[in-house]
């Protein structure tokens, strides 16, 4: 009797089926988790790109607004005439973004920029004022788009900033 009970206790561990069922359940539970984790990671990456896009747009906008009116208008029109262009393939854009203080680490920064701004595109739109204001101000729109999914062109998102530039000497 005692021996029989002891044998039965030995056989009291989880059976293979139980383990398999548990693993299946666990796997099923992990799938959405991993999926969500993957989505989250991609989302974080996307957030980073979004922030970069915002900074790129703001930087370009600030540079254009900081220039004297005529120069700003000329640069903006030159950029506008190109439509969408790759952020780092446009020499005018690069020259606008270029800064002397970065010269020392230029190559390193350029490498980082190429990596970071891969698939980034920019567009500038100029809208002239009408009537008496025609030569006094213009509406400047800076738009930056990026691929949320690096492999998919259809995943593009964009951000645009708008500001009015006024002539200084009126």
């Amino acid at each position, binding site marked *: 009797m005692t021996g029989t009970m002891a044998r*039965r206790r030995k056989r*009291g561990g*989880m059976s293979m089926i*139980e383990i398999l*069922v*548990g693993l299946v*359940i*666990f796997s099923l*539970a*992990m799938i*959405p*988790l991993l999926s*969500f*984790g993957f989505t*989250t990671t991609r*989302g*974080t990456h996307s*957030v980073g790109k*979004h*922030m970069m896009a*915002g900074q790129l*747009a*703001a930087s370009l*906008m600030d540079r254009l*607004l900081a220039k004297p009116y*005529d120069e700003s208008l000329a640069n903006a029109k030159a950029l506008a005439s190109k439509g969408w262009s790759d952020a780092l393939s446009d020499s005018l854009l690069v020259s606008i973004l270029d800064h002397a203080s970065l010269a020392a680490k230029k190559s390193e920064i350029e490498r980082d920029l190429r990596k970071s701004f891969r698939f980034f595109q920019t567009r500038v739109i100029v*809208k002239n*004022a*009408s*009537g008496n*204001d025609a030569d*006094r*101000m*213009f*509406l400047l729109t800076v738009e930056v788009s990026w691929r949320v999914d690096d492999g998919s062109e259809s995943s593009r998102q964009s*951000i645009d*900033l*708008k*500001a*009015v*530039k*006024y*002539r*200084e*000497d*009126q």
Partner: protein
Amino acid sequence: MHREFWRRRGTVTVILLGLISVIVVFVFSLSRRLSSHTQLLTIGDHTQIARYYLESYTGDVISQLARQANDPGSDVYGLFRQAGTGDATIPSGAYHPNPLLADLKKELGIEHVGAPKIELRGQKALPYPGIVQMPDSLKGLEKRGFLSISCSIRFNKRPYTMAVRAPFLAVMRMTPVLREFVLFCDRIHLEQQRPFGNQDRINLTFTKGSEHPQEVPANYSAYKGQPWVLWFTDKGFSNKDKCGRVFLGADDKPIYLNLAGEKNFQGYMSDLWQVFPEWIKVNKTGDRFQLQPIFLDNAGKPISLRGIDVPLKFRNHMAKIGILGFCHEITDDAEDGIFSNSFRNLRDIMGPDPAFQALINDNPQALALASSLKLFGKNGEQNNPDNPYYGPAREVFGSVFGRFLMITFFEYPSAQGGGQPLPYNANANFQPPPFATFNNVSEVLFTPAEPGQKYGDYMSRVVSGGLDTGGPAVDTYLCVNPASKKSRHPFGFRDFAPADGVRLNGRFDAFGPAWFAIDPKKRAGDPALSTVQARILRTFPSQAAFTKAVGDGTTKFHVDGVVYVKGSLNLKDITTTDIRGGVVLVEKDITLGNISRGINFDQDPVALMGELPKKLDDMKQEELLTFVSLSGSPIRLAGDKHVGVQLISMNEKVGVPCDQVVWEAVKRPIFCGGIAVNTPNLSQRVREFGRAGIEPIFFYVPSMADPKPSVAVGVKSYLEGYRLAADEVKE
């Protein structure tokens, strides 16, 4: 056994439930994290959008106020110009969003929270150099301060407010002190190192048209000159504040102007009306000068001159005093001259007067040379010589003396030859020997009318000669100030009292160096400076930038304040009537085309001379332009019509006469405004004017002397005190 089985099953369930709970919590926290990332990103984007909108909004406010600041019809025009430096609130009605901004607002779904709050704050009066004494009424008229602007919006239910400060500067549109002058030459004494001969380069205009009449000396053979004639508008004629003052310096250097004469003193070119009979000391009865016989020629025919008869002590004894201006008719070689048919000779009559001798020593033809500056226009007495005429009210500052010749004949009954000349004598108390009567029947003595009078008071001499300041006739030094006929003291800086109340604490010739000093180490608009440098509103790197900003002169020309142009400035014709005035400081050379302001200068000259003065009388100070060559290099006038313009070319290093304003056009110059230079270099200007064959026309613009100077306001485009808050900014 059944219970054991269920106990084992519960373990798996608990484990699974635990895992699922952990997963749910994990997912929830990840979801929250991702959601907050997205939210932060959205807020960041919205803040960027709001920031650029607010910058556009405040930029629009500044842009509109900058334009309204110089628009007399706007709400804010007076606020920028009110006396004192206290804070002021700009009414909300002064600003309306421009259509571009309104469209952007609609597109972005932004809502304005109230009107922008705009105030003028931190105002401080601009300082002045020590030489300028500003009246209390004008203190704070020129000032600096800032526009404090606060704009609030609501965007996606979040409030955003931006507060900025835009500095502004309010400055006079014209140069104080100098704007009171139609002609200001603070070193013209360099052109008269010696008031005679070849070193006198002020008195060099022949009075007979533009060409010397006959037998000219070799050095005058090609000479065609016209004097610099200052005319008057109706408004300016009788008002000393509206006719433009003249300064001929340096302050302590005497300047002698040969007054032009003609045989017929009623000629257009004669200046003899400027000699007032009140200035003749022995003219106790106050008689007027008249054309009357002074002596007889060889045929016994009376020679009439502008003169007076002064009774002497004895009955029928009189001194016949005549005055002569500089003209060809008094030279020895004048065939139709005053003395050509007389055994009298001007040399004898003037005697040993050192001034006369000096005049004729270098060149006898010098007696035919009058001043090249006709400060009071042409002879205004010409059409009505019998009525008293004291001329226009123009004030002439500096030690400026009118030089003319006075000849006196002693006439008594049975005088030989109709009277005996009283020549110059260095001894004022000289008693001439008795004069013989006709046929030597008897003798008479020249005896003054009153005991205190001397021979020197009557004798023939060069008045304001330039040599006898310490001699017997010092009381006959006559300064050129028709408005001050009862006073003989020259006008100095202490007499300078324009209508705006500005006074000088020092010499006129110290003003230019004090006001136009540019310190290259200091920036334009430096508040620590008291010079024009502190008043510069805008600096243009080139002429192109300047014309781009102010206009090319065909449709508009808006200077609005004091501006600085680097390099040279070469402007074509400014034909528009849409001109807003100011001072254009130029680093190097200036070349100007015409500045015609829509006036048709091709019309009939009579009609033009009817229209032009009226236009000048109506012209406002806001419209007047000043061009300043800071280097003192020549301002070249490629055009010859300049209306409402002041030209200033001064450099304290000038030590010899030099060209500072040059007329390159060959037509008749018409210049309306003012000119301020160290030296006009008259010998060159007279030749330039002579090319036209007719005298030039210079007018002052009466509004240059307005009691309240016109002020322009410049609002800087850069911002100070930039603050952005996702909430209302608390001041």
